[in-house]
């Protein structure tokens, strides 16, 4: 029994080492590491940060990036009231229809709508961005090696290119982007937004906030998941303990 546990834990350890080794790719630069409130066993999203992050997204990123998987109604998860959500949705217009005459019309957004794409299609997006395509940000945090830390590092990683670096015309130097040349100009500058809760809008602060918001956008069920997980595992621990006791009892009757 002890031997089995030993070999099993050795196997788990080995495979984790193997896998983490196998997956460590990326730009080769070590990312900045932030202690996010929502990581860890009990972590929950920092509501205030996520709300500020929504503001950064709306006022800065949304002119180039979509967030098409996220419905306005789900913003209630972040502590917005139903009315606030309706108000946020209303800021956007959508094509409705056809009406009884077969005409399409414009209508304002409803809570069930999802964030609209800023461009009609990929070609239009590329045309406005010097040929580069700004990806949808709904899943961006889960879609990059390094997750939150990558996004935060990217946002704060704009620098002047080293003298010997051959930067293509129209590109920008970013320490953390693979290859260091990114078509997106540094999106965030100091005071780019004005926070209503009085938080000082530094590049660092806004980068953290938008990262928390996009982490939530990518994994909105994180809190429900961990909450259920703790209960399930606690239950399983008790149940397994019982099984162990019963097993001991039944086997002890065997000569």
């Amino acid at each position, binding site marked *: 029994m002890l031997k089995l546990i030993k070999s099993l834990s050795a196997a788990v350890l080995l495979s984790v080492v193997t896998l983490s080794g196998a997956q460590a*790719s990326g730009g080769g630069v070590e990312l900045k590491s932030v202690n996010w409130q929502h990581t860890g066993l009990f972590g929950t999203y920092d509501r205030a940060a996520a709300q500020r992050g929504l503001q950064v997204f709306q006022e800065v990123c949304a002119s180039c990036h979509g967030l098409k998987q996220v419905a306005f109604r789900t913003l209630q998860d972040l502590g917005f009231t139903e009315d606030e959500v309706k108000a946020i949705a209303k800021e956007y217009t959508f094509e409705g229809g056809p009406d009884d005459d077969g005409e399409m019309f414009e209508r304002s957004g409803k809570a069930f709508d999802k964030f609209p794409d800023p461009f009609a299609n990929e070609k239009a997006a590329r045309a406005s961005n010097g040929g580069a395509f700004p990806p949808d940000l709904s899943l961006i945090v889960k879609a990059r090696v390094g997750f939150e830390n990558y996004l935060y590092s990217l946002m704060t990683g704009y620098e002047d290119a080293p003298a010997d670096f051959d930067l293509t015309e129209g590109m920008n130097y970013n320490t953390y982007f693979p290859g260091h040349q990114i078509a997106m100009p540094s999106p965030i500058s100091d005071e780019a937004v004005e926070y209503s809760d009085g938080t000082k809008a530094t590049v660092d602060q806004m980068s953290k906030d938008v990262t928390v918001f996009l982490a939530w956008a990518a994994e909105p069920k994180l809190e429900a998941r961990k909450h259920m997980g703790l209960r399930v595992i606690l239950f399983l621990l008790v149940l397994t303990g019982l099984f162990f006791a019963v097993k001991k009892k039944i086997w002890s009757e065997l000569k």
Partner: protein
Amino acid sequence: MSFEPKNPVVKWVDTRLPIIGMLHHALYEYPTPKNLSYWWTFGSLAGVMLVVQIVTGIVLSMHYTAHVDMAFDSVEHIMRDVNYGWLMRYMHANGASMFFVVVYLHIFRGLYYGSYKAPRELLWWLGLVIFLLMMATAFMGYVLPWGQMSFWGATVITNLFGAIPVVGESIVTWLWGGFSVDNPTLNRFFSLHYLLPFVIVGVVILHIWALHTTGSNNPTGIEIKDKQDSIPFHPYYTVKDLFGLGVFLIIFCGFLFFAPNILGHPDNYIPANPLVTPAHIVPEWYFLPFYAILRAVPDKLGGVMLMFGAIAVLFALPWLDKSRVRSARYRPIYKQLFWIFLIDCIVLTYVGGKPAEEPFILIGRLATAYYFIHILILLPLVGLYEKHKPLPASISESVLDKKTSAEEAGNA
């Protein structure tokens, strides 16, 4: 304890279809060696995982859309809008990994204790068939969410068939249902991904039938000789397996609830794009050893043949291993070789996840060579020349020996 039902309904059914008697037989009359260790739990765990995959898979299918324009979004719909959809999807995705963990441990258990030897050759073969079907199922399942790795993994793997001389190209076109991985490919993969698990269920039934015909092997590798050596499956192994299941579920839930994406690849959260090739195309971790073998050969056809060969040689194991002793417990040299072989497989897994550059190419080649050397050369030779330790006269003697030596150790 032969089956004589008292309940009239049971009796009525059983005289017409002796199914309850069959179950009774499997649970109470099937004599099980009394010395099975926890390494014998993984078979029933694999069965549990198959059921988990089928149940979660059926629920996912109710909400999933197999179309290139909608598949990715439909998975996100499951993750966000479907009640407990995230739970089903993470259970299914992590469940596939857990299924492979369990089956790999199950296979290595068989290698260690010589469970593939006569009279269990067919049992071993059926297990390998299940393994092959699982690989096909998991490969096609991974294509369904239609992320970047789905698409490019499917492209790389299906292209392998193009290496077959003369008909290769036509076979690939036939597999794709067109001239690239596209909507017809996704549709047929979904259809087959739904079908194959039920084929697996069928083979599992044969596997268990064969098992109940030959009886379980055990850590000593010697057969049951008399009543002393065996106990009924129920309640002894039902309760032992339940305890094992509990421990396993805790580990499974650890991944499922606290690190559901750690075994996946971030690129699969990027929608498939035939115009953008990912920097490194890597399959799921459970395919990495075979991927390493595939890439160990510079020639495509050679690589493909070696990869399939890696599994084919396992079918020949009952004849390659010449030793008449089953369990590595009594085979001092084979025991060392077993652990080296295991490490070799871990090295292959590691290399399979690395880009094709030095030093990984060289390591991959050496590890691949060793894989085949172990099975094709060392195993037959060791079987012929190894001097095994004395075998206990019976299972119960070995159990008694163990007990007394433990007591002596305790008294000392």
